[in-house]
């Protein structure tokens, strides 16, 4: 088990490194892509700043707390999209038959798909996420303890895994439907639009849906509730925010099982 995880990680790093080197040959594109990535995420951040300027506090959440929540979401997003962003290209591989070639190689199919392409826009996400966290962490948690920092790191990793699990589950659909790209776009825009705000400002059915049907709350909202001592709303149990980072690994394992089962439904377009 340990050996397969080690070799899987090594394969992932080697393939991702090759994808990055191929992109690095286009240096002007790297710079433009990074700026583009920052701009894309900055739209949401600017919207948030303007909204907070106009409306101030939302329920219990002060502007600093909301900005910290947005930073957590963006950090998790960057941590997912840099190493695993290639997952959204699964539909393209299935449609054009490139997946046939991947089947012949002695490397895990999921690893081959996620490490096949490196999106330079994701570097911009990472830069913006780091900058926002550096600004808003001291403002939201001025007296943070070592335990708080440790929980924050685990929570960001958990959030990244939740986002990965959502896109892996959607990618599984590509083996049945051929094209699931629009669902990736839909999931991405839902996470971007709603993930910046405290889920508790929505109505109870929406909070429940964003927690149990579409696990958006687990990406940043619930861990932020634990760190900032806020009520998660919708009568959610008080232990759930502290346990929320554990959902990431659980959901990824379930999504990977679904992904590998769904591969059985793949039919080559070249047959």
């Amino acid at each position, binding site marked *: 088990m340990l050996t397969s995880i080690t070799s899987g990680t090594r394969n992932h790093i080697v393939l991702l490194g090759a994808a990055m080197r191929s992109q690095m040959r*286009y240096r002007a594109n790297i710079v*433009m*892509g990074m700026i*583009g*990535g920052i*701009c894309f995420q900055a739209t949401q951040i600017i919207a948030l700043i303007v909204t907070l300027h106009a409306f101030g506090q939302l329920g219990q959440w002060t502007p600093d707390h909301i900005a910290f929540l947005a930073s957590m979401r963006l950090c998790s997003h960057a941590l997912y999209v840099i190493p695993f962003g290639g997952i959204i290209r699964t539909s393209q591989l299935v449609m054009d038959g490139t997946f046939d070639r991947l089947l012949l190689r002695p490397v895990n199919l999921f690893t081959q798909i996620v490490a096949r392409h490196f999106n330079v*826009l994701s570097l911009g996400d990472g830069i913006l996420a780091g900058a926002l966290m550096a600004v808003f962490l001291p403002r939201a948690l001025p007296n943070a303890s070592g335990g708080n920092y440790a929980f924050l790191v685990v929570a960001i990793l958990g959030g990244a895994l939740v986002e990965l699990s959502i896109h892996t589950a959607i990618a599984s659909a590509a083996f049945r439907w051929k094209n699931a790209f629009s669902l990736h776009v839909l999931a991405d825009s839902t996470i971007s639009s709603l993930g910046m705000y405290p889920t508790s400002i929505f109505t109870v059915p929406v909070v429940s849906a964003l927690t149990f049907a579409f696990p958006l709350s687990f990406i940043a909202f619930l861990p932020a509730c634990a760190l900032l001592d806020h009520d998660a709303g919708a009568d959610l149990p008080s232990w759930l925010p502290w346990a929320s980072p554990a959902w990431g690994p659980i959901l990824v394992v379930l999504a990977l099982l679904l992904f590998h089962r769904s591969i059985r439904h793949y039919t080559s377009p070249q047959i």
Partner: protein
Amino acid sequence: MIMSLASFTCLATAQIRSVWSFRTERRVALLTLLVHVSLSLMVWKAIMAASSTTPVMSRQETLAYVAFAQISYFCLVPWTFSSVTERVRSGAILSDLTRPVGFLSQVFARNVGTYISQLPLAAVAVIVACLLGARLQTSLASLALCAASLVFSTLLTLALNTLMSLVSIWTVETSGLYMMYRTVASVCSGAVVPLAFFPTPARTIVEYLPFRSMVDGPTTILVRHATLHEAVSIIAVQIVWLLLTALLMWVTWCRGVRRLCVVGG
């Protein structure tokens, strides 16, 4: 070279047919638009309910503004906002240049075709937005002034989109630049957050940019019941920006066509 109405209609109709030939893509585009508008309305309703501050716009005005602005932006700035980039990259621009109609006129006709093909989706989105609470009470005069402003905002946006895409004559890779344009345009036009909510210094800067005339102009006339004087000044600013953008587009094209290089030749 000014094209005849018949040529313009033929090119625009061909573009509409081309867009609507991908039926599944149209369905997905509609679904994405509806989800986007619904989520935005949900977020704004929640924000206004959770906040104790008195905003500069009423709840009803804000919801109507957000819905109308997002739907307008969806029609005006589609993901592929001009055919220029693809035609330069593939070399198809060579055949375009040999046609008896000017290249910019062809691009403009195609852009108008793309815009018209978005309108049925926009109509469905308007109905759904009304059902979700983004209703507004407006007068016939406001509607007429808004329609006039929409014409100029459409022409201005199509010209800006074309101007941006002409950059592809100088550089092959344009994705980063397009992303920057999209971001600046969406924020500064009011498509993301109503401009009335911007802090005063930011609003002052935005008022001197052309993007405000894209979405905020017609939306303000419709939703905020602008007076005749305000509406006329909004339309006058749109006309000035349209003329400036058209001039800049023409100069850029004249310079660009001299250094156009297709597939290395």
